[in-house]
Structures are given as C-alpha cells and as structure tokens.
C-alpha cells in the first residue's frame, strides 16, 4: 500500500496484457504474428529452393541448409536414427513455425510471443498427437498398436493392473496436454516477467522521490538480462517441442520388443 502511494505502480489485469484488439476484423496481433511466421518460413525455403544447386550456396540457401542440417543431425539422428530422415520436412516445419512464433516476444514494438496464447500450442500438440497415433496404427496395425501401448512387453503379468491405466492415460492424455502446456506456460511466463520488470523500472524512474529514481536501474538491468534469456528460451522451447514430437513418432513407429 505504501509502495503504491509513492509509485503509482499497479499491475494491469491479465486480459489487458494478453487480449489484443482486432487489427483487421477477425484478426488480432497474435493471429497476424502466426500468419507472418508461417509466411516467413515459407519464403526462406522458397527463395532458397530457387537458387542454382551447382553453385556454392550463399544467402538464404546457406541459412536453409544450416536449419535442415540442425534438424537432421541434432534432432532426428539422435532420436529416430537413420530411417527417420524422411520425417525431416514435418519436423522442420514444426520447428520453424514454433521458433518464429516465439521470437516476436523479444522483437521491439511487437513483443508478444504468439505461442503465449493457448490456441497455437494446443493446435500443434493435437497435430502431433494425431500424427504419432496414426503412424503407430499404420505401422503396427490398430490391434498391435493398442496392445503394445496398454501391455508393454517384459513386465510381470500382475503389474498390468497398475501399468495399463497409467500407460493409457499418460500416452493418450498427458502427452498432448504437457506438450501444449510446456510451450504455452514457458512463453507466457517469459512475457509476464518482461512486463513486470518493464513496468517496475518505468514506475521507479518516474517516482516523485529522489532516492527511488536511481534504484530503477536494477529492474532495468534485470529487464535487459531477461530479454537475453528469452532469446535462449525461444530457441530451446522450439527445440524441445520438436524433439519430443520426434521421440513420440519414433516410439509409435518402432515399438519396444
């Protein structure tokens, strides 16, 4: 209360931070960011594909090759092995879209990660859920897939009373839920942290008290540090989302024996 009276600092209601007015009818800032990130990803690869493959790569083609190699070496080879390389296009699209949706959280004047609203992570998680279940059914047959899922081999018979419901719930419900919530909550938490420190340093700089004004430097430094940290988080969350999708698909395609 005392702090409030000196600083006139009040945290805005959460809807003011996250719910944007429509820019174009039916499309707000979050929707525009999602569309823009889909378009940017597409444009990078379209312009890279138009270059002559016989000349040494440069410009966008270099960038595209780095991204493809990153997906192949660091995600697919580590989780699915050599026969998973056919999944590169799907995982590449997923990675690029999530990353380009995360990055606007720290770009000045945009400063809103599109993945900080539940709709986009939830849709992506449902997409991954459909893909890995469909792959499991395609490769093991509907009966074999659900048999492997509910009765994992190599477990004593009596334990199936415990394991079957746990496995069923964790694979079919917890997996997509935690995939979506992980991405959403990470980006939302980062966004809220930036908002809190920005508001605090603004309130301290404008305080009607000579002692409080220099103290405002500390939350400002924290703000700069957290912005750098968000660069890392944006990449790491896209990486984790993609690698978990790869692990789930690999688990459905090649069951444990």
């Amino acid at each position: 209360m005392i702090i409030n009276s000196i600083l006139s600092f009040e945290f805005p209601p959460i809807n003011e931070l996250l719910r944007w007015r429509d820019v174009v009818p039916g499309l707000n800032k979050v929707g525009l960011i999602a569309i823009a990130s889909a378009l940017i990803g597409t444009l990078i690869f379209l312009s890279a594909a138009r270059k002559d493959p016989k000349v040494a790569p440069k410009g966008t083609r270099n960038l595209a090759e780095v991204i493809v190699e990153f997906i192949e070496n660091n995600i697919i080879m580590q989780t699915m092995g050599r026969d998973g390389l056919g999944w590169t296009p799907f995982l590449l699209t997923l990675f690029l879209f999530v990353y380009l949706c995360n990055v606007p959280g720290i770009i000045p004047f945009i400063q809103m990660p599109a993945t900080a609203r539940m709709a986009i992570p939830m849709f992506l998680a449902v997409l991954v859920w459909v893909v890995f279940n469909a792959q499991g059914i395609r490769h093991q047959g509907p009966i074999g897939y659900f048999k492997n899922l509910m009765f994992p081999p190599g477990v004593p018979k009596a334990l199936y009373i415990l394991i079957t419901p746990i496995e069923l719930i964790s694979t079919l419900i917890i997996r997509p839920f935690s995939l979506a919530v992980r991405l959403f909550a990470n980006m939302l938490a980062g966004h809220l942290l930036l908002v809190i420190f920005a508001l605090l340093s603004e309130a301290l700089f404008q305080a009607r008290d000579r002692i409080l004004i220099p103290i405002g430097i500390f939350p400002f430094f924290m703000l700069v540090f957290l912005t750098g940290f968000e660069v890392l988080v944006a990449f790491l969350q896209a990486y984790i989302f993609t690698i978990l999708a790869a692990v789930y698909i690999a688990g459905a395609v090649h069951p444990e024996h």
Partner: protein
Amino acid sequence: MEALSKIVKAAADAATGDEKNIAAAGSAGFAYGLAAIGPGIGIGMIFGSAIEAMARQPEAAGMVRTTMFLGVAFTEALALIGFVVVILLKYA
C-alpha cells in the same frame, strides 16, 4: 497435505470481497512455491549427472545433451503446470 487444505479452507472461509483477493494471491504464491520445489531439485540432478557424464566421456556429449534436454522437458512440465494453476487461481 491435510494441513495445507485446512489453511486454504480457513483462508477461503474468512475471505469476503477484498479479503478474498488477498487469500487468492496468498494461496497462489504458496502453490507456485510448492510446485517449484520438486522440479528444482530434479533439474539440478539432471544437469549434474549430465555434466559428469560429458566430462567422463566427451565423445558421447551429443547424445547426453539430447537426453538431458528430454529429461529437463519432462521434469519442468510439473513446475509449469503449477504456474498455470497459479494463473487459474488468481485470475479465473
């Protein structure tokens, strides 16, 4: 667990109007603090073991790093669900 639910119940009983907001804020902070204990310890253990493994066998560093991030993702999910619960407690 029982003591915790008693505290929350007492806070909810005493709460009317402004007091209710205070109780919600207090229990939200309490909830996040509790949710962060386990994952904090878990992530520390994961990174500690991964650093040890990488130092012992540098050629396996790539594989260790991938598995480490997987483990961190699963452990961190619990803390993040706690964070979402706090948002729901405070604002929903």
